[in-house]
């Protein structure tokens, strides 16, 4: 039986058709996957269902009746709930207060707390209504968002990339909850890049490419590779790893301890490890366990004890990012727009962020604009960045293209040590494969590469050795060979760090 049917939905934005004649349906009590690369039109589509965006053309039917939500409130009243990828929670408020804020007519706090406890018990989402959201892990915060939705008794629950921030054990728990919801008749529209998960969880999948429906498949009968190829529209090749050949330790971190500048951040505690030349070292861990703090300490945006970081035996703990770059330590932070690149500036100008000194894009402080343009063009060409021109603003690029630009900008400067945080987060499959290949080639050329990532599949694919960052502490590195995802998952969950 059909719960919601979308017919010929079309939405145009200036210069781009976000959704072109989308038609498919989600059955009652079905977990339906929505697949597609970045920019394929998934978010526009779910925004239309949730009433955030109105279609230019086409119609929707919910349980056979015409459904045209003009705002999220109408959609919610009709039984549509959505868990966004980025949570909208206030860290300084409790779970119950956060949930009450999202309600039309919140009941008294004791009644609400009771209902939260009941729902959380029923669906196996343990959560204390009185705790401050700031003290919760990311997985627990997601539970707050899910419970907020469940309190409305939704007919359709939309989930946008729900597992990107969870440990494998948390993912299993989430799937149990989702299956229980399905068995009770709730439909779920599930958006994810993680094709293995979709095979396990979803009954059907609709695949979007460039705003159009390419087809519907039954994930159980497909392989992850075949679904990825449907999304991309071409054959994929997986990165090749050559035999490891490590040199001397090039980056040494000794007892690095740092308080976080963010009140809800994580302090780094006694972090020690060595990165060898030619090695790709993976740092696994759930977001919020000190990844950002580690990145800032290594890049020089936050200074630490002089002796705590050594690059080729030079003490650089007190060196600023420019000095570290000149010595050969280059970084690519997680947040592309706003941290690794300035959104309003052109790609050519963005080369100056990390390339001004090392690439000599200036003389006596005066900018060498032709040099910056030439360097940007070299990046665009060698890293297959799709943009009309290097004069276009960084924010006009899609996530994957901008990430290729950022990674290319650093790699083309021949780093001795390259540190990258979430290299392929939110990047489509083709671009992700390209970036991983580039990281492997960089290490083959003799550089040390440190990859901080939450994507375990990615780390298993490219790293030579492996550490876990949990609550600001790091585990002893292990060779990546022979380690299982389950074992890493247990280390990530904060159980005793070996």
């Amino acid at each position, binding site marked *: 039986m059909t719960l919601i049917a979308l017919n010929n939905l079309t939405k*145009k*934005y*200036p*210069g781009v058709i976000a959704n072109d004649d989308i038609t498919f349906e989600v059955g009652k009590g079905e977990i339906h996957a929505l697949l597609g690369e970045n920019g394929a039109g998934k978010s526009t589509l779910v925004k239309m269902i949730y009433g955030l965006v109105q279609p*230019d053309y086409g119609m929707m039917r919910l349980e056979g009746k015409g459904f045209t939500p003009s705002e999220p409130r109408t959609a919610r009243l009709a039984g549509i709930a959505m868990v966004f990828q980025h949570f909208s929670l206030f860290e300084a408020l409790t779970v119950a207060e956060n949930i009450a804020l999202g309600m039309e007519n919140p009941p008294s706090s004791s009644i609400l707390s009771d209902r939260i406890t009941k729902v959380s018990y029923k669906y196996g989402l343990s959560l204390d209504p009185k705790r401050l959201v700031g003290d919760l892990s990311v997985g627990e915060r997601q539970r707050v968002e899910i419970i907020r939705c469940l309190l409305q008794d939704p007919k359709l629950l939309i989930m946008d990339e729900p597992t990107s921030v969870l440990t494998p054990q948390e993912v299993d728990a989430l799937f149990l909850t989702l299956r229980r919801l399905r068995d009770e008749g709730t439909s779920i529209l599930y958006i994810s890049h993680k094709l293995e998960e979709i095979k396990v969880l979803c009954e059907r999948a609709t695949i979007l490419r460039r705003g159009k429906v390419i087809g519907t498949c039954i994930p159980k009968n497909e392989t992850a590779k075949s679904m990825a190829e449907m999304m991309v529209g071409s054959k994929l090749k997986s990165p090749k790893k050559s035999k490891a050949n490590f040199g001397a330790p090039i980056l040494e971190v000794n007892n690095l301890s740092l308080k976080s500048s963010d009140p809800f951040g994580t302090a780094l505690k006694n972090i020690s490890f060595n990165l060898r030349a030619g090695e790709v070292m993976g740092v696994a861990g759930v977001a919020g366990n000190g990844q950002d703090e580690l990145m800032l300490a290594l*890049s*020089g*945006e936050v200074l630490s004890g002089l002796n705590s970081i050594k690059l080729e035996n030079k003490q650089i703990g007190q060196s*600023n*990012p*420019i000095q570290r*770059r000149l010595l050969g330590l280059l*970084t690519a*932070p997680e*947040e592309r727009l*706003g*941290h*690794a*690149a*300035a*959104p*309003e*500036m052109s790609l050519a*100008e963005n080369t*100056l*962020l*990390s390339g*001004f000194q090392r690439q000599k894009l*200036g003389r006596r*402080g*005066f*900018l060498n604009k032709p040099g910056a343009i030439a360097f940007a063009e070299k990046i665009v060409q060698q890293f297959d960045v799709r943009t009309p021109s290097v004069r*276009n*603003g960084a924010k*006009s690029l899609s996530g994957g293209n901008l990430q290729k630009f950022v990674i290319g900008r650093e790699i083309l400067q021949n780093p001795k040590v390259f540190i990258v945080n979430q290299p392929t987060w939110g990047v489509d499959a083709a671009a992700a494969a390209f970036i991983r290949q580039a990281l492997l080639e960089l290490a083959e050329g003799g550089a040390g590469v440190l990859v901080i990532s939450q994507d375990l599949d990615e780390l298993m694919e490219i790293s030579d050795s492996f550490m876990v960052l949990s609550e600001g502490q790091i585990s002893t590195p292990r060779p990546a060979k022979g380690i299982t995802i389950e074992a890493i998952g247990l280390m990530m969950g904060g159980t005793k760090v070996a």
Partner: protein
Amino acid sequence: MIRLEPRPDPSNIMIGLTPIFAVIATMIFGGMLFVFLGKNPVDAIRMIFWDPVFGEHAFYYRGQILVKAAPLIMIALGLSFGFRAGIWNIGAEGQFIMGAVIGGATGLALYPLDSFLVFPLMIVMGSIGGLLWALIPAYLKIKFNANEILVSLMLVYVAFNFLIGMVTGPLRNPDGFNFPESRSFQDFPSAHNPELWAGTGIHWGVLTTLGMVIFAYIAITRHIFGFNVRLAGQAPRAAKFAGVDPNKMIAICLGISGALAGMAGLFELTGPAGKLTTTFPVGYGFTAIIVAFLGRLHPIGILFAGLLLAITYVGGDIIQSQLSLPKASIQVFQGMLLFFLLAVDILVNFKIRIGKGISK
């Protein structure tokens, strides 16, 4: 239905056109204001914008325009660096006063020394006076994260009272019959900033301002410093990534704006004003904020915006004397200009669409 639709990229045409729209809107609504005041709006607008440049007595007014534009432009240039970097120095008026008092006091201490070094020394001391006054909010912001808008603004009133204290105390003219004012710099040739060519209004401050426009233009468009200023304003975290120290940026930007405001104060004191009095500050430091934004924080834009505002100052004098309108009416007029500029600014990033039509 009228809707605003985001543009994919900011419109360069609108960046140039919006100041003109703002001026036109100000003329229309300012004209209405004059109607309510019982005056002929066309006459009033003509007296404000046309007469100072092309009217019967324009030969006199044109010099006045340069005299008033120079400090506005010099202060606005300094402010534009901080404004680009997201550092809001609202206290240029105070730095202007302190520059005049410190630089002026230096000259008065040397009276009646006859040396060509006196005037350059006063310029340096005036700049330092403004610089140090602006470094107070910088220090408090870096050390205690105190809001620089409030601190710099409050320091204006401190500076003003300091000025009053000085002209009624140590700096009072010993031969001045106890009037609260300093010795006149016209009577002190080595400290005087004279009109260089009679009738043109051009004095050393005007020439220095022109040099500063070129200097600022090069700094903002060709130099890594200007790049870092823009970067810090647009994407503070990206600036940190690039190695820009945010605290240094706060100190440098406030320092530059303070030094230029102080220098402008010194030129004003030794030239057009002539002596320190309790009525020495006339609001250049505040009007320069309008000039900086009207000129889109760009040195060339500021040059034109400063000239335009100077015209409204001179025009304001004309309507005061010829239509007997209150002085406040021209201040309202200038305020409207900033108001409309900020309002039409939305057209840079948004398009107006009328009707429910489907775009493209």
